[in-house]
């Protein structure tokens, strides 16, 4: 058994007296894609942000390749962070930079690469997400799906060990979802380790090794998609998925 790339161990987080994450644990092996599903407000986003220390968990430990984050201390949190890529629901591209420079800026500022070196790498990553010809465009000139693909390229350029995706397609028009999901599927096939919060059950079903159902800050069920979703509405997770599928017209 290989050692997991990412281990989340007994994370708790409360905010304003309300418990948002309640003793959450999970682990990701190399090349695995796990999917977080569950109702909004269930703690999916908070969990991803805690793994990335964009929010500080109250208790618990995040372990990346056997190294606990707490060992690194607060000063090295940036070193920890850049090993984990984060994809946001609303892209968060830098509006004043072209697609190329959006990808290149962290390479230059964090990895101290030269401008030419960083731009080269940026073009490579943009080509990887199918945007080789869009490097000179600004975010305002891109469609939502293209923006999200730029943000994926931006995260990939940092050579992350794990990618966290926080509902990467929720802000997209239905016809743009496909292009982003395809990039994510390709990434998964190329061996990237990923944890994704999503409502795209159909997509999750085919690619993921495990679906994790979160509700009220806890992982209430988890398992391989076939197992978790086949109980035909008996479990809470299957019920939730059935409802989602119904909404998508696949009922």
């Amino acid at each position, binding site marked *: 058994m290989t050692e997991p790339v990412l281990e989340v161990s007994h994370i708790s987080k409360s905010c304003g007296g309300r418990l948002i994450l309640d003793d959450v644990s999970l682990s990701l092996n190399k090349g695995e894609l796990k999917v977080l599903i569950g109702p909004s407000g269930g703690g999916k986003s908070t969990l991803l942000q805690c793994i*990335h220390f*964009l929010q500080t968990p109250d208790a618990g430990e995040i372990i990346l390749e056997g190294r606990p984050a707490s060992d690194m201390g607060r000063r090295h949190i*940036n*070193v920890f*962070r*850049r090993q984990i*890529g*984060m994809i*946001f629901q*609303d892209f*968060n*591209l*830098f*509006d*004043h*930079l072209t697609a190329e420079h959006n990808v290149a*800026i*962290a390479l230059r*500022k*964090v990895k101290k690469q030269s401008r030419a070196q960083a731009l080269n790498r940026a073009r490579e990553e943009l080509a990887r997400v199918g945007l080789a010809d869009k490097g000179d465009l*600004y*975010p*305002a*000139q891109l469609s939502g799906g293209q923006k999200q693909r730029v*943000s994926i390229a*931006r*995260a990939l350029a*940092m050579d992350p060990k794990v990618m966290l995706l926080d509902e990467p397609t929720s802000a997209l028009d239905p016809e743009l979802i496909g292009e982003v999901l395809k990039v994510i599927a390709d990434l998964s096939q190329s061996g990237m380790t990923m944890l994704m919060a999503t409502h795209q059950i159909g997509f999750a079903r085919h690619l993921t090794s495990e679906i994790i159902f979160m509700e009220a800050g806890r992982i209430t069920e988890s398992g391989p998609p076939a197992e978790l979703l086949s109980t035909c509405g008996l479990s809470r997770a299957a019920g939730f998925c059935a409802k989602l599928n119904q909404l998508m017209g696949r009922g």
Partner: protein
Amino acid sequence: MKSINLITWPTIGYLLGGAGLTCLLVAGGLGLGLGLGLGLAALQVYGPRRAAALVGLYAWFFRGVPILVLMFLFHFGLVSWLEELVRACFNYRLRIPALASAVVVLGLCSGAYQSQIFRGAMLSIPAGQFRAARALGLTGTQAILSIILPQALRLSIPAWSNEYSILLKDSAIAYVIGVTEIMARFKAVASTNYQYLLMYSLAGLVYYFLTAVGVRLLLSLYDRVRWPGLAERAD
């Protein structure tokens, strides 16, 4: 033709020198205010709560007291007191020129106004961009310097051109502490040739000209650094 002698070449040189001094006042005041305003805004937006409160207090003070009062207070109050102190302690006759005092007062005031311009601009950059920068491994300072500021500065130019035109006109107040800028020199000339209407009209025209040129330049700068998606200017 007596009127030809009203304004002689040396007089014109003298008056233009006043315009030069005014430009110096404006450049100094705006420059000082820019540094101060940026620092204060960053402190107010990203600093600890207590620092933010102090910045707020600073901004309220300088926005709430007339520049005329501040000029007198600073030059005849603080500076004179400082000069006395230096003479008493070091037996050295320190002279701080009125121009320096005026630049400092204009800079302190403008810093208060500019801090609010930049604060607004910084707050208008979506917080997600800062979060994304941190997520990529940039430090907070790096994120502010390379993500927030480049956007906030460009966003601020239209409001900043307003600050330029206000400060330019406020600089006339430096006259009261003895800086011989535009207003002072036109008044001096007027009191020798008695053409008050003409001279003060001309003074007004010079201010108008400087305002128009400066604002025009700033707005064309805005056009040049505007990125696609940033609102076109409305004028």
